[in-house]
């Protein structure tokens, strides 16, 4: 059996291993209910122009009412300069050093730009930010981010909003093996609670998702389902799975079998 330790994000401990997004819900009320049902302790937010449709104090008040820890993101940024500026603005508005660093390299699949991500991470860490980089499932990239000083990495399961689950479990597993002390969170691409469970089973410390809950037929019920899934996945990881075998092995004892070989 493995040791079970709480989720550790830059020294802060959390019981819940589900980080939840605040976007795409059918209504602000459903968002609040779903966040509560998920039992998440961390919620992601962003910044946009104040004259845009829903930016402002009303939304922020709803989030503050949840009492959750806030993780601002730099979603939509395509350059180092944009991401750094948005991170600095987030720090002032949300009064936190945490930043989910999202730096898009390809508009079609919203794949993070690994080169720009490293540069922006280095700048932000030097400015005292606690950077949670959203990255691809590339081991060497993750090692470079770790070498810069990141204490949390967030490789994708699949492109944002696709709901495809863990497209490359081998890569994700290799990152887990090679960075055993890093807090690893699968971020993006999950669609089903079983995807979250799979990530936790392989030793990931948490998952971050939004669309899978907000886009469900009933976001509140799906939030509960994801909460159960991450708990099951973590419990399975701690319990340690049996070794996989290539041949069948009976589970019921064969000793004392009453009709064994009697037909011969």
């Amino acid at each position, binding site marked *: 059996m493995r040791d079970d330790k709480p989720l550790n994000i830059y020294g802060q401990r959390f019981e819940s291993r589900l980080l939840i997004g605040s976007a795409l819900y059918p209504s602000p009320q459903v968002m609040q209910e779903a966040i509560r049902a998920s039992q998440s302790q961390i919620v992601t*937010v962003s910044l946009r122009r104040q004259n*845009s449709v829903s930016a402002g104090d009303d939304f922020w008040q709803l989030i503050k009412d949840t009492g959750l820890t806030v993780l601002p993101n730099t979603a939509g940024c395509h350059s180092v300069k944009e991401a750094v500026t948005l991170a600095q603005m987030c720090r002032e*508005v949300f009064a936190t050093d945490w930043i989910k660093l999202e730096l898009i390299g390809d508009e079609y699949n919203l794949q993070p730009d690994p080169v720009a991500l490293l540069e922006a991470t280095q700048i932000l860490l030097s400015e005292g930010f606690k950077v949670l980089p959203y990255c691809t499932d590339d081991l060497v990239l993750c090692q470079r981010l770790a070498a810069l000083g990141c204490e949390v990495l967030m490789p994708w399961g699949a492109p944002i909003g696709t709901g495809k689950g863990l497209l490359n479990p081998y890569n994700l597993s290799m990152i887990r093996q090679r960075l055993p002390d890093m807090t690893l969170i699968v971020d993006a691409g999950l669609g089903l609670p079983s995807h979250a469970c799979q990530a936790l089973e392989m030793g990931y410390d948490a998952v971050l998702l939004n669309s899978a809950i907000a886009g469900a037929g009933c976001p509140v019920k799906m939030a509960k389902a994801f909460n159960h899934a991450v708990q099951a996945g973590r419990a399975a990881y701690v319990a340690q799975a049996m070794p996989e075998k290539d041949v069948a092995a009976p589970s019921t004892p064969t000793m004392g079998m009453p009709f064994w070989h009697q037909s011969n």
Partner: protein
Amino acid sequence: MKITFNGQTIESTEHTLQAFIDATDAKEPYAVALNGQFVPRSQCQSTHLAEGDSIELLSPIQGG
């Protein structure tokens, strides 16, 4: 002078960033950037505007 504010070009007679913000109906909470550079709230009073400056005023929104 012409100032671009959150993507809209407008005429302004304000000379400092703080005065410009005060002249809008900006609601808390927000953060400000001038020409792509973050300007801490504490420095808005001493930041002077020039023709063609671009100001972004951002507030909390849903995020994933």
